[in-house]
C-alpha cells in the first residue's frame, strides 16, 4: 500500500466499482407507478412522517427517462399491463423494480378475469413487499434491500440483466418489420 502512505490520511483510494455502487445506492430515483390504495400508502412513505429521503429515494420522478427504481404500487389490470411493460422498457439501465403490495405481487384478493396475478409475468421484479397496503416502514425496508442488492452486484451485472429483460418485453423483430414497412 505504497500509494496511500505516500498521500497521507486526507485522501482515500477506492475502486471505480465502489464509487459507482455508492452513487447508485444512495440516489435511487423512484418512479411511483401508483394505481390503487398502495399509492396512498406510498404518499405516506414520501411525506415527512416516514420520510424516505433519509435513504436518498425521495426525489419522485414521473417520467421513466429519469427514474431508476420502478415502484409498482397497486393493482395492475390487463388494461394496464401493456403500459407497465412499456414504462419498464423505457427506463434507462440500471433499473430495479419493487412490487409493492399483495395486488402487485400476486393479484391479491382479486382473483378474477381482469387482474394480472402478479407483475412478475410482465416485468422482472427485484423486491416484493407483502401487505395490503404494506406499512411505510415495509416500503423503506424494500428500498434498503434494493440498496443491499446494489452493493452485492458488480456494475457489469447490468449486461445480463438487460438480456433477461428481453424475454419479458418480447423480441421486437415484428416491431422492426412494422417500423421498416
Amino acid at each position, binding site marked *: 500500500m505504497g500509494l496511500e502512505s505516500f498521500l497521507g490520511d486526507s485522501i482515500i483510494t477506492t475502486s471505480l466499482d465502489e464509487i459507482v455502487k455508492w452513487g447508485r445506492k444512495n440516489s435511487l430515483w423512484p418512479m411511483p407507478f401508483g394505481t390503487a390504495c398502495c399509492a396512498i400508502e406510498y404518499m405516506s412513505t414520501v411525506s415527512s412522517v416516514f420520510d424516505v429521503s433519509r435513504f436518498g429515494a425521495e426525489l419522485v420522478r414521473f417520467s421513466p427517462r429519469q427514474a431508476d427504481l420502478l415502484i409498482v404500487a397497486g393493482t395492475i389490470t390487463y388494461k394496464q399491463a401493456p403500459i407497465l411493460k412499456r414504462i419498464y422498457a423505457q427506463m434507462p*439501465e440500471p433499473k430495479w423494480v419493487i412490487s409493492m403490495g399483495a395486488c402487485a405481487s400476486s393479484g391479491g384478493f382479486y382473483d378474477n378475469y381482469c387482474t394480472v396475478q402478479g407483475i412478475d409475468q410482465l416485468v422482472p421484479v427485484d423486491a416484493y413487499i407483502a401487505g395490503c397496503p404494506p406499512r411505510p416502514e415495509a416500503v423503506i425496508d424494500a428500498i434498503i434491500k434494493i440498496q443491499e442488492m446494489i452493493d452485492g452486484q458488480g456494475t457489469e451485472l447490468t449486461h445480463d440483466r438487460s438480456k433477461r429483460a428481453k424475454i419479458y418485453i418480447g423480441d421486437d423483430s415484428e416491431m422492426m418489420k412494422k417500423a421498416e414497412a
Partner: protein
Amino acid sequence: MSTQAIEIILVVSIAAIIPAVILLLSGFLGKKTNDLIKLSSYESGLDKVIGTAKERFSIKFYLIAILFILFDVETIFMFPWAVNFKTLGLNGFIEMIVFIVILLAGFVYVIKKGALKWD
C-alpha cells in the same frame, strides 16, 4: 499573460470540464439497451403517438418569447451600471434612466398593440 487573464481562462476551463466529465462518465458506465420500445417516445405509457413534434402552433408563443428576450437583454445591460453605480455618478444615472424610458415606451406600445393578449 497578465494574472487576471490566466484566472479567467482557469475558471472557464474548469467550468467546461466538470459538466463534460459528469455527462460523459455516465455514458461509459451505464449499460445501454437500445431496443425499439426503449427509443420510442414516452407518451404516458401508450404506444401510438399521433403527429410529430413539428406541428404548426399559434404565433403568439413566438411573440411572447421574442418580447421576453428583448426585455431580458435590457436588464442585462443594467447589471454593469448597477455594479459601479457610485463611480458613474449622476450622469450615469440619467443615461440609464433615458435607456429605461425608451424601452418603457416600447413596452407600452406592445401592450397597446395587444401582443400580450393571450386568447
